[in-house]
């Protein structure tokens, strides 16, 4: 391959997006870090307070609960989403009748508006007339206040989160499965491997780069959970405090209460958490991800 000559017109091609990124992202990033060291009042008056916002955060019981909840959603939600979607993708990759129907059914939540999902699940969870309490009643389970009970509410949100995120991940994993050359599986079958052995010894290792990718993006997504909590529970209700996530609290502080410095500090903490966890995941991937 011959080397192309240096081409300064390249800068013209990059300029439009570069300028936009600098203004709306780089400047915004730096400004946000700066704001996190300031006390910003309702009318925009600003005083430098150093690390005070962060010290306040540590003392703030709601922030602590938001952090614990966020780790709960990510810690329980990500394994559930990853395992369920691997299983589903595998099932949808079998040669069976009615695949088109099943695939369509599985993919629909991926394109549904979060707000519609929120409305729908609030109705399903309705403690008096909801379908879920009715169905559970048929097998003798007492009706529950899914979105009102302070113990239960995190689980109720988690169920919707998993329900809504599986679709997208199944699509990605299914594509990963379809890229695995069938000769590997066939070779193993000829050697007498049964379905389970093929799945664990052949399919999973070959799929591991895609699994890793899906784990990373669902982790990042779960750590930023906002939509369903905001949409399904009124902020006045007691249960809200028990379901609140870091991004929900960020939104509340920065935009509902107009505490921009405090809000900025929350987003900086979130950035730190996401960076740390993603870095750990990349560190650990060497142990279980196989690239060929």
């Amino acid at each position, binding site marked *: 391959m011959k080397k192309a000559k240096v081409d300064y017109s390249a800068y013209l091609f990059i300029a439009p997006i570069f300028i936009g990124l600098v203004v709306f992202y780089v400047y915004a990033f730096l400004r946000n870090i700066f704001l996190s060291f300031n006390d910003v009042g309702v009318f925009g008056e600003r005083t430098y307070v150093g690390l005070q916002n962060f010290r306040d955060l540590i003392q703030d019981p709601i922030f602590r609960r938001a952090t614990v909840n966020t780790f709960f959603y990510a810690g329980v939600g990500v394994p559930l989403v990853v395992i369920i979607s691997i299983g589903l993708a595998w099932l949808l990759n079998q040669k069976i009748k009615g695949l088109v129907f099943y695939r369509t059914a599985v993919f629909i939540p991926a394109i549904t508006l979060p707000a519609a999902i929120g409305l729908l699940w609030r109705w399903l969870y309705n403690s008096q007339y909801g379908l879920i309490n009715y169905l559970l009643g048929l097998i003798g389970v007492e009706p529950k206040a899914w979105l009102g009970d302070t113990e239960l509410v995190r689980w109720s949100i988690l169920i919707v989160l998993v329900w809504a995120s599986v679709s997208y991940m199944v699509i990605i994993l299914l*594509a990963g499965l379809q890229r695995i050359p069938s000769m590997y599986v066939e070779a193993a079958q000829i050697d007498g491997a049964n379905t389970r052995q093929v799945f664990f010894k052949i399919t999973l290792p070959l799929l591991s780069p895609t699994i890793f990718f899906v784990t990373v993006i669902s982790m990042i997504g779960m750590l930023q959970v906002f939509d369903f909590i905001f949409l399904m529970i009124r902020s006045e209700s007691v249960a809200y405090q028990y379901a609140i996530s870091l991004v929900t609290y960020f939104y509340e502080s920065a935009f509902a209460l107009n505490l921009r410095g405090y809000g900025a500090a929350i*987003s900086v903490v979130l950035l730190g958490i996401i960076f740390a966890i993603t870095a750990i995941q990349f560190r650990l991937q060497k142990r279980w991800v196989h690239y060929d």
Partner: protein
Amino acid sequence: MTNLTLQAPRKVKLANRLKNSWIHVILIIVAIVLVGPFIWMFLTSIKTYEETITVPIVWFPEQIQWVNYEIVNDKFPFLRLYLNTILVVMATVVSQLAMSSLAAYAFARLRFPGKNILFLFMLSLLMVPGQIFLIPQYQIIVGLNLTDTLTALVLPNMFSVFGVFLLRQFFAAIPQELEDAARIDGCGNFRIYWQIMMPLVTPGLVAMGILTMIGAWKELLWPLIVNQSIDKMTLSAGLANLIGEHTTYHEQVMAGAVISVLPMIIVFAFFQRKFVESIAQTGIKG
């Protein structure tokens, strides 16, 4: 190989069928869990209020109440919201495609000082969670006097780093000979980008367009932050208001939900393969 098929074809077939029926059972349960709620949504939307609060549950209405759709449509500006959403989604998709493809072309095909550093710079932006930008972005919008406009919904979302990465792979895959031939014919960079390469990267553009579309369609936080009046909302954020307001009538709320879900499901049904391929693109390592 022949050995295996000769041995016991019937046994293998039976085992296969047994295995397949298990798969069907599981998939049917999954389909019910995933689609059942949408069917319940629809069934609720065609009931009377009394039927929605009957215990035990009435599955089907005595008479289909299409009137719920009229009522919720009168209470809630769905047409306006859809129009806004289409405008915002289209503007976002077009501007992202334009700017990302320009940069992707440069990164894939041109040689220039600082290329790696610029690329690394973009890569690092890709990893930062979006909330970190929101407060200053909001302040910029306020400074430009653009709150409560559709422009505000599009502006910070015009620039997609992810798009640069996705499209770069497509530009890089184009054979060098094609470019060389065009250069001999006297084409400049822009003509090569626009007339030779853009048609060839169409699959990439479609994939990115669809992903951007899904993202812009679902976006909730940003519209809630910058816009207040319902006339300047997208459907996603506008619908969030429905949660606060008319919650007493379950059948109307569900009718509203159906209105906001159905068109996208129809679009999806037509372009399912393209949708799925596009989402699958995100998982391919470049």
